[in-house]
């Protein structure tokens, strides 16, 4: 009886071992290239990080399904390793240390200023290049060299938007409203400086609000009394934008409303309906006028994978693409970020997500004195009837 049981157990173990070997052999057809993400995927700002992670996961799955990515003589499957920093700098440091322990050299995130600043020593000590979605200039100017800004900063998009509206819509006066948090407040300060430099009359710039405000009417009432031509919602999150737009319009505001952050058309439609028509925001490359077939396929794959597309991913689709394309150009960078940095200065390939001859290249010389920014197209959108339309496209140098 015992012998029979022993034989049975040995057989089961043997079968399991064989199947494990077979399956591991199957997965091991390509080597694995791990790319990290450290950012916020829970709590009030979860939408920012989740759109990052989902963009990376969608693209990685797509690459793996089509045979992997060839870097030098080796073909890799891409694995996305994620860490939720809960918008807490201490957790962001722990996340970056985890990436270092896993031998990861390229990390997307963090999403906010203090997290991005906190991880800098860890990244520099462990040879990690990271791609924050945060705007402090000291992260990207010398002596810092491991951070690469993943999007267009508010101090780059704001002046372009105000200038456009001044020249085409006759905007003369401007008011700023922002949440009482570090990122929106710093974006507001940048916006005020840009508006003044353009000669616009800043009629209101002190009004702020708590992110958990349940009624924006009292917040906006004093701003509306200043009757600005343009109301800027500095650094506004997709959660607050519809409510602010709705309250401003309900208070009788007839002027223009804009922000320098990316928004989601569905969220605007649900939260503000037709009142959001004319709202100007920064987007990526998914408006029909400029998006390529590859962008359309990305949106389709993302939607199938997660049930619903997030328009914020129009800008967040780029980071992983840049990492992989740069590694393709210089395979030595796979383990040596100094090689990656050297390649950044001359790197230039076609932008697969946009029609025409748009390029992927590193920029930032004007703002940071070195190429430490992804050239994500500065697409300024206007919301109309549930969709974004391209207002104008510009480039950061």
């Amino acid at each position: 009886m015992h012998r029979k049981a022993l034989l049975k157990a040995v057989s089961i173990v043997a079968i399991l071992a064989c199947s494990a070997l077979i399956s591991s052999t199957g997965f091991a057809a390509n080597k694995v290239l791990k790319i990290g993400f450290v950012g916020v995927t829970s709590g009030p700002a979860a939408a920012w990080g989740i759109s990052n992670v989902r963009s990376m996961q969608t693209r990685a799955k797509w690459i793996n399904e089509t045979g992997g990515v060839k870097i030098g003589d080796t073909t890799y499957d891409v694995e996305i390793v994620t860490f939720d920093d809960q918008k807490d700098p201490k957790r962001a440091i722990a996340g970056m240390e985890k990436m270092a322990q896993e031998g990861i050299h390229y990390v997307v995130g963090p999403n906010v200023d203090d997290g991005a600043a906190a991880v800098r020593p860890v990244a520099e000590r462990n040879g990690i290049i990271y791609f924050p979605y945060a705007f402090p200039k000291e992260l990207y100017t010398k002596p810092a060299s491991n951070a690469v800004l993943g999007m267009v900063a508010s101090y780059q998009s704001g002046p372009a938007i105000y200038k456009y509206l001044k020249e085409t819509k006759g905007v003369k006066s401007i008011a700023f409203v922002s949440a009482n948090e570090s990122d929106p407040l710093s974006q507001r300060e940048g916006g005020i400086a840009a508006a003044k430099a353009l000669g616009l009359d800043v009629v209101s710039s002190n009004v702020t609000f708590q992110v958990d405000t349940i009624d924006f009417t009292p917040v906006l009432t004093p701003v509306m009394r200043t009757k600005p031509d343009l109301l800027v919602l500095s650094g506004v999150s997709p959660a607050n934008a519809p409510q602010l737009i709705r309250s401003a319009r309900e208070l009788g505001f007839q002027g223009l409303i804009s922000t320098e952050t990316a928004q989601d058309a569905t969220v605007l439609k649900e939260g503000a309906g037709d009142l959001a028509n004319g709202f100007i925001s920064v987007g990526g490359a998914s408006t029909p006028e400029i998006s390529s077939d590859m962008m359309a396929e990305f949106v389709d794959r993302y939607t199938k994978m997660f049930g619903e597309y997030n328009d914020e991913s129009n800008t967040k689709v780029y980071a992983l693409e840049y990492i992989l394309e740069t590694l393709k150009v210089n395979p030595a960078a796979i383990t040596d970020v100094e090689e990656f940095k050297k390649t950044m200065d001359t790197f230039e390939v076609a932008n697969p997500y946009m029609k025409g001859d748009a390029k992927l290249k590193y920029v930032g010389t004007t703002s940071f004195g070195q190429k430490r920014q992804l050239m994500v197209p500065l697409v300024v959108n206007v919301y109309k009837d549930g969709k974004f339309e391209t207002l104008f496209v510009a480039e950061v140098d």
Partner: protein
Amino acid sequence: MEQVIVNALYLGSQYAMIALGLTLIFALMNVLNFAHGQMYVLGGFVTYTIYGRLGFPFIVALLGTAVTLAIVGALIEYFLFRPVIRRSVREESTMLLAAGIAFLLDAVILLVFGEKQRGVPKILDGVFNWDFRIILPYDRILVCVLAIMSIAGFIAFMQFTKTGRALRAFAQDRVAAELMGVNVDRYSMIGFALGAMLAGLVGGLLVTITGVNLGMGGPVSIKAFMMVMIGGAGVISGAIAGGFILGALEAVGLAVLSQYGDITYLLIFASLMVFLSFRPQGLMGKPWG
């Protein structure tokens, strides 16, 4: 001035409703429900689904939300709080459990409803404008009236029904109520279900104004605790008073202090600390509990 009063009334009615559920649960079970804000968020998402996605009338969505949250509350009490209260006399056990439930609900809401901000079509169009002295959209007026009616209905329920009287007796003296034949387990469950229902209802009402998103739970809980501390923990009238006081302070602060930046809540928190150092039991609470 008129606008400030109206804003205070509107905010106060919402806040009072949020605080009512929290204080009811505390009064009955001596549980600080840190998951109260998440129940508010869940209520918002249920209303969003029934009214915004499935297209049922708003009132049906509110009823559906009330029933759903009552069931969720009852299940949480039965399967989680009851065993913990039975096995542990330490108060921090229920506090930790409540915090755990808050994280659980956050995770469930993220999985089921996603990370995006959600909103629903306006329930009423148009704006009431009295010579630019009072400007208030009609939907806010309706939400305010519905909230005040809900509070009145809740008070009437507690005052005039057998269940309400039993709950009040239970809250006043658990042992005495038990000796008088009140079924403690049953009324704990009913109380928790009612508390969750109130949180869900106000979430359902406010989804028409502010929308709802995953991250609203924590801040809502903090405000609810503030109101309860102002009014007095475990006192129904105190929760209502706390809600209206916080609403008034917020409305006045935003009107008067806006040019100095967002210092309204800084002053509210500072005032609350001073107030509690003189009257730690709140306005209507008793020093002995």
